[in-house]
């Protein structure tokens, strides 16, 4: 495989007004403030389950199995909710049960799950004992996350890292045992990042399936075991190739915190994690998503996981020219809420996409303008660039060319993470050969054009420059409106993707709990402390 030429992020190529950029950032933090505050004033069933998982609760209730298997963390949290409620968190009642019982975490969890024991809220010394155990176990759990980051660093140091840009490929057979050989074949042909797409609808499950699975639809269930199996397979091929191969999955959905925790424990390297995706595209309650995203992002922050945001989704429904500014606006918000959860710039894989109608005049010039604008606005973020999907048809030849032009724009604008397009996007989930051809396409284009990124300039009063400034201005206008009325109201007003969502509508509201005074969650406290944000 041709070696990649030296990667660079071309900056200062467009005469954009940086005061406008600064104003957008300022508006974003104004808007994000109340959202972060809301998140800090609530907890969710999934956050409590994630916390239990981090202190070692796992497994499924006997007698339940497969995709329907009922996880013990769910059973325990349900039991606590029904007995003492979740307002003060699940850890104290749980560790009280552990300490007043056999002392073993998993055994106690099983007892509670089977209904053999009913959790209570301990007082006095019992409370102190439970709190101390909880705090110790939480420390181990949080350490485990931090260790994942260290282990990754060590592995990269020993096997070697991948050169940028990173070629990101998707596997989606539905069966982890078919996914693995395909992921390994892709890695051998040059894939730097493997994403295992989830089975349709998993994001709406209020629990995380268990074990190795083979029954997904158009994707494979995100389970801790599937994570482990794929991570091991990629470590194996990474050794072989002398290049650390990254693994990605999806946090978004009703179980963001738990999946984030599992990803951290199994040393995944990137996670799809967007502050609004669940709300807009999956009709998940906004309080639920806003609260969950904060916890899950603190986990990612500590685990050294790069998040991928989902702005590309706006363009799969809306027009990529008319709505270009909504992508940028959402990126400023995602950036702000990510930093508020302790993530660093280097962890912000802000997403955008090459989705302009191929029949539109000057589409290649416009895509260049959009991609370069985003590059200029986020000079330190490892941007994630998504290929054409919406306008991909059954003409696989023409589709292969669109993907090539996408690669070219990615190369010319120095995008860090390139999600390789599939010529069969309009037909089926990727075939093994689709992926291999996509890699050949990318090697050719990046091998041939990367250095151009350093030396191309755009006429200061040409269409590209003009278009970039226009999109930036439209973004400012949008953020000003949102800032005026506030984030919740803006979503209720359908200002994002023309989709109306109400504060108390959508799925998963029942799992949102306003923290009572006395809310205790050592896991959350330690996480916030470690990543340096207010708990």
């Amino acid at each position, binding site marked *: 495989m041709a070696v990649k030429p030296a990667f660079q992020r071309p900056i200062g190529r467009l005469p954009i007004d940086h005061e406008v950029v600064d104003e957008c950032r300022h508006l974003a933090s104004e808007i994000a403030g109340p959202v972060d505050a809301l998140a800090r004033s609530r907890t969710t069933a999934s956050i409590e389950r994630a916390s239990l998982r981090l202190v070692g609760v796992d497994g499924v209730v006997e007698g339940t199995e497969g995709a329907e298997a009922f996880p013990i963390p769910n059973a325990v949290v349900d039991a606590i909710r029904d007995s003492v409620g979740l307002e003060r968190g699940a850890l104290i009642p749980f560790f009280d049960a552990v300490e007043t019982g056999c002392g073993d975490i998993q055994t106690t969890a099983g007892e509670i799950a089977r209904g053999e024991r009913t959790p209570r809220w301990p007082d006095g010394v019992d409370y102190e004992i439970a709190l101390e155990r909880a705090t110790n176990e939480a420390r181990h759990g949080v350490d485990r996350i931090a260790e994942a980051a260290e282990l990754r660093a060590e592995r990269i140091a020993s096997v070697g890292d991948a050169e940028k840009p990173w070629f990101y490929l998707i596997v*989606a057979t*539905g069966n982890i045992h078919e996914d693995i*050989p395909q992921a*390994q*074949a*892709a890695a*051998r*042909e040059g894939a730097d990042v493997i994403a295992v797409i989830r*089975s*349709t*609808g998993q994001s*709406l499950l209020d629990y995380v399936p268990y074990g190795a699975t083979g029954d997904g*639809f*158009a994707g494979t269930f995100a389970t801790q075991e599937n994570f482990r199996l794929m991570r091991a397979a990629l470590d194996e091929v990474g050794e072989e190739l002398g290049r650390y191969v990254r693994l990605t999955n999806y946090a978004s959905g009703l179980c963001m915190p738990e999946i984030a925790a599992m990803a951290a424990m199994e040393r995944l390297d990137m996670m799809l994690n967007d502050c609004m995706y669940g709300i807009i*595209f*999956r*009709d998940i309650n906004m309080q639920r998503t806003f609260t969950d995203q904060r916890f899950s992002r603190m986990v990612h922050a500590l685990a050294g996981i790069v998040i991928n945001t989902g702005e590309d989704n706006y363009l*799969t*429904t809306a027009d990529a020219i008319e709505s270009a500014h909504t992508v940028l606006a959402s990126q400023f918000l995602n950036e702000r809420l990510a930093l508020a959860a302790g993530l660093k710039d280097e962890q912000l894989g802000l997403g955008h996409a090459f989705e302009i109608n191929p029949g539109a005049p000057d589409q290649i010039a416009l895509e260049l303008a959009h991609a370069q604008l985003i590059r200029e606005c986020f000079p330190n973020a490892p941007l994630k660039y998504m290929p054409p999907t919406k306008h991909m048809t059954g003409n696989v030849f023409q589709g292969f060319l669109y993907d090539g032009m996408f690669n070219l724009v990615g190369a010319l604008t120095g995008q860090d993470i390139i999600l390789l397009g599939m010529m069969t996007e309009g037909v*089926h*989930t990727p*075939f*093994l*050969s689709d992926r*291999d*051809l996509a890699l050949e396409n990318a090697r050719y284009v990046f091998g041939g054009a990367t250095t151009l990124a350093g030396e191309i300039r755009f006429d200061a009063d040409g269409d590209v420059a003009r278009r970039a400034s226009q999109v930036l201005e439209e973004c400012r206008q949008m953020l000003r409106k949102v800032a005026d009325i506030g984030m919740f109201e803006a979503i209720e007003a359908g200002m994002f993707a023309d989709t109306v969502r109400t504060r108390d509508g959508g799925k998963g509201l029942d799992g949102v709990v306003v923290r009572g005074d006395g809310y205790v969650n050592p896991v959350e406290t330690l996480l916030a402390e470690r990543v340096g944000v207010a708990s």
Partner: protein
Amino acid sequence: MTAIRPYGDTTDDGMVQLSFTLPVTVSERAREAAMSIARQMGLERPQVVHMKGMGADFTFFVVYGATSVSVEPDELEVEERPFPLLSYQEVNRAIRETLKRPLVVVGACTGTDAHTVGLDAILSMKGFAGDKGLEFYSEMKIVNLGSQVSPEEIVETVEREGGDAVLISQVVTQRDAHLVHLRQVEEALVDAGLRERVVLVGGGPRFSAHQAAELGYDRIFGRGSTPSEVASYLASQLDRLVEFGPHPTTHRGR
């Protein structure tokens, strides 16, 4: 007209292009295996013009060859649209005159499918390719349930709203998800004793009209369908709806 064959650059040369992967390590043996596959598919003098190993266990091939098969287009029975294409006014008039009340349309993406763009293209004002959606028709009442709706919710809605037509969208086809999910809705309607009372329509990019029967649907629409086609079809089914008289549950519905 007579039989025709694939055309490369000369009439009846029968040339076709083929590509596929075999789970075998790249080698001359692999090339022969590909040749064998091509010959078994009826290609004469096939040429493996490209062979590439993918990892250690797979090889990709591009093959050109001549097929001897032919087809007589005129002999094929191609289902011509069995209903007339009506204008916006004609559809509204038909509903007013035949049904004498608004036509209630319930639409949903069922199962785990969250691809709403297609259904929205048919239902929403905006419509598709410049053709306005069903919401635009003054004589229709549209209830768009959106994505990932369970068969139960659909049945409930049909009862509550007094649905006359049920429109189900399925885009994800991997492992036949689309067929499985369409059947589930049909069965739920049967169980609820509503099947004959509604016009049941399915749609998605990978369906062809043929499949209606096997799926127990009244009609199936494929890729590129337009709202007016759907509206015209519904208008063609009004008599049937009238027959059944008002929905038992309609009154609850209003």
